[in-house]
């Protein structure tokens, strides 16, 4: 009777654990103003810019354009460090210009700038009734002027513009013709500034030449247009910036990229830094100036989502804001929140599938450590580490050392190995491999010890099997815990942790056969009945 009532209580708890979060979620999505759109992850990019130069006793001035937030682009967590004492920010032709300077500079100097950016992709629809205005009467109108690099009044350009975008024709058609023409030019990699006329005459150009020709063709037919300079965000380290352009249609600046073929649209990874025919860096002469952008993609939910409905008591997400204000990084919270899900994965792998692993929850910790290295480098390092421990162990076994000193020796070898691997990675530019050295020492220690004990107790063959199963377990934990869908779901609805509890209660009472037992007892289960020989 005791266990029958215990079963009833458990059943009630189970229903509550499932019911509370599900009804909260239902309420929030139907009444609480949560839109499912907010669940879609965004690609965020951590951009850092390193500028280096040397002073020879004179004053130094370095200028570059800084990103600006607008309807499309969000810029967060901007930080600057600099060896130069002075910093000022100016507005220049609507751009945001950062100016670093200092007198009497001698020796190597550096400026570091970083920010997190995320942007939406935009596509514009241009009203087909808008007509091409035709050549402007006066060339002093803004965004219609002719310059030494955008030769809008050059006869070759005006002739081509009149053919591609006849006066009075549909603007959208004309822009298509201009885009097709510029896109059709042979593309070349960046070789310095190319003016519009040169691009036209050579029939080839890099992004800046194509964009200048596009702008020149527009301006020559009275269509206001301007260059845009910025970055294409993609993980990696680079020096190349990108140029595209914008055409003023009614009150809107509509983006075009004749290099990569974006017509009246802009992808989310285009980050504008300045408008107009500018250069990205301006600096004092003869200072050996160099720079590089380092960009890392991160996927996550929008910051504005974390801010919405802060005062709604049902909005558990407001706790993220609380942690944020206390300076606890969001990434750490995400890791913590995914741990229950990781445990559920392991419960399923062990109790339903029948996998065996080192330590019950060790695969979760290792999977978390692999966030630094990525799964493949991480697994490679893990397996190599295991093999190394095995080899060292075989070598020192005949010495008959006591257990704990032997563990200490194995662990020291592991550290040396991990450091060596990291150094090789750093030297050869494999940053993922280099980050293997961040492999937490506590996890390494536990792995080393479990593995050696297991060889002792289960033998080499069985240990090898369990090692492979552990690797599989790590991979499963990694996939689930790093799956965008689960992360977003759990960040948005932290109450889902209760569902994990409910599933664990259910699995805790489940006494079915493990998948691997069907194989183990296949003769008994599927054989010719129980008759004896």
């Amino acid at each position: 009777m005791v266990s029958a009532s215990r079963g009833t209580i458990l059943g009630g708890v189970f229903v509550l654990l499932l019911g509370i979060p599900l009804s909260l979620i239902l309420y929030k999505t139907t009444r609480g103003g949560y839109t499912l759109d907010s669940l879609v992850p965004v690609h965020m990019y951590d951009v850092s810019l390193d500028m280096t130069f040397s002073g020879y006793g004179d004053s130094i001035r370095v200028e570059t354009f800084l990103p600006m937030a607008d309807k499309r682009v969000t810029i967060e967590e901007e930080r600057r460090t600099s060896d130069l004492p002075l910093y000022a920010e100016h507005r220049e032709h609507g751009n945001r210009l950062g100016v670093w300077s200092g007198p009497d500079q001698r020796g190597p100097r550096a400026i570091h700038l970083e920010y997190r950016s995320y942007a939406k992709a935009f596509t514009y629809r241009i009203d087909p009734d808008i007509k091409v205005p035709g050549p402007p009467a006066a060339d002093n109108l803004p965004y219609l002027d002719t310059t030494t690099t955008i030769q809008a009044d050059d006869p070759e350009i005006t002739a081509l513009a009149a053919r591609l975008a006849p006066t009075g024709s549909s603007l959208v058609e004309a822009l298509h013709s201009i885009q097709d023409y510029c896109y059709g030019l042979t593309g070349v990699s960046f070789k310095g500034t190319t003016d519009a006329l040169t691009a036209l005459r050579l029939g080839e150009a890099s992004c800046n030449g194509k964009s200048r020709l596009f702008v020149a063709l527009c301006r020559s037919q009275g269509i206001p247009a301007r260059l845009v300079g910025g970055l294409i965000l993609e993980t990696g380290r680079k020096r190349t910036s990108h140029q595209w352009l914008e055409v003023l249609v009614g009150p809107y600046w509509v983006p075009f990229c004749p290099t990569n073929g974006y017509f009246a649209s802009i992808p989310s990874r285009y980050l504008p830094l300045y408008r107009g025919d500018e250069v990205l860096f301006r600096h004092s002469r003869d200072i050996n100036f160099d720079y590089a952008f380092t960009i890392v993609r991160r996927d996550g939910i929008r910051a504005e989502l974390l801010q919405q409905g802060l005062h709604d008591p049902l909005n558990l997400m407001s706790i993220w804001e609380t942690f944020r204000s206390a300076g606890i990084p969001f990434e750490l919270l995400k890791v913590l929140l995914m741990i229950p899900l990781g445990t559920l994965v392991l419960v399923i792998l062990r109790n339903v599938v029948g996998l065996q692993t080192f330590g019950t929850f060790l695969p979760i910790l290792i999977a978390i450590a692999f966030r630094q290295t990525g799964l493949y480098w991480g697994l490679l390092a893990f397996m190599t580490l295991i093999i190394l421990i095995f080899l060292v162990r075989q070598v020192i076994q005949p010495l008959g050392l006591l257990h704990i000193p032997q563990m200490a020796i194995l662990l020291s070898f592991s550290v040396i190995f991990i450091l060596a691997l990291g150094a090789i990675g750093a030297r050869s530019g494999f940053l993922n491999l280099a980050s293997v050295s961040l492999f937490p020492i506590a996890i390494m220690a536990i792995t080393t010890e479990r593995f050696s004990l297991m060889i002792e107790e289960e033998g080499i063959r069985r240990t090898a099997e369990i090692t492979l199963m552990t690797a599989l377990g790590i991979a499963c934990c990694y996939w689930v815990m790093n799956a965008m869908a689960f992360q977003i779901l759990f960040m948005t609805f932290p109450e889902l942790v209760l569902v994990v509890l409910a599933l664990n209660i259910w699995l805790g009472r489940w006494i079915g056969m493990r998948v691997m037992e069907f194989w183990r007892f296949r003769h008994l289960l599927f054989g010719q009945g129980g008759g004896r020989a």
Partner: protein
Amino acid sequence: MLDFLRNAALVLKGDHPVLGINARNRTLVYRENSRRHYPLADDKLRTKEILKAAGVPVPETLGTFSWMHELGRVESTLGKLTDFVIKPAQGKAGNGILVIVDRRDGRWLDAGGNTWDTDGITRHIGDIIFGNYAHGLSDQALIEERLVQASLFGEERFPGLPDIRVITHRGRPVMAMLRIPTAASGGKANLHQGAVGVGLDLDTGMTTYACHQGRFLTHHPDGRWRLIGRKLQAWDRILDMGRLTAAAMPLGYLGIDLALDSRRGPLVLEVNVRPGLEIQNANLEGLEPLVADPVHMGGKGGAE
């Protein structure tokens, strides 16, 4: 083929006799064995005390080492012995067991033919006390008389020391098997490490099936010894000792390991609170119907 499909359909419905680990843990180990009594089974010294008091024959204890400072008396305790066994009191799966068979010129010879001096033996005992074989917890080293393999069926002698596993449920033997070491198992009677599991008919002590690493065979992999259709010696005494042991321990689901010694007959080596499930393959028979709890089968929990 038809048989296979019919069986597969039954299996999918959950209607099969095999006991899985989940079911063993929840319906047998947790229900029948109270965790506070585990140490009685996990610690061989305590097990032997209980069994001796109940009149169950166990291997003679020749000495124990519990602390590092006792290592100084290894020579004085063991010097006069020519054969003995060193065991970790809380070891698992036969790990850490050292079988000494002879003494020559002040050195000992183990069953594998290696020689050991006093330092080597002292270090091994130190490892045991340090907990190398007991998951890092400190342990005791146990010195026991060496058992000499009695003939199981007839004349043949198997490598290592075969043992007999009897599963008891609420005091009643429900299944048994013989575990015979092989060269691959390094002389250990451990199925995972390569020993052969041989099913035993409970009523007659006749061997039924032999299973080695998931394959069924009729003869021992290291020789031409026939393994099935043989009658095990002293079967009735073995079963009685299983019953006596189960009655002496406050644990309702046990795996009792016995060995047949040529001088003393069957002896209980140790008991396990979580006996493995491979015995089902060795007998080609499922445990589930044999341990079914009539109350439990009715659908609701146990009647404790």
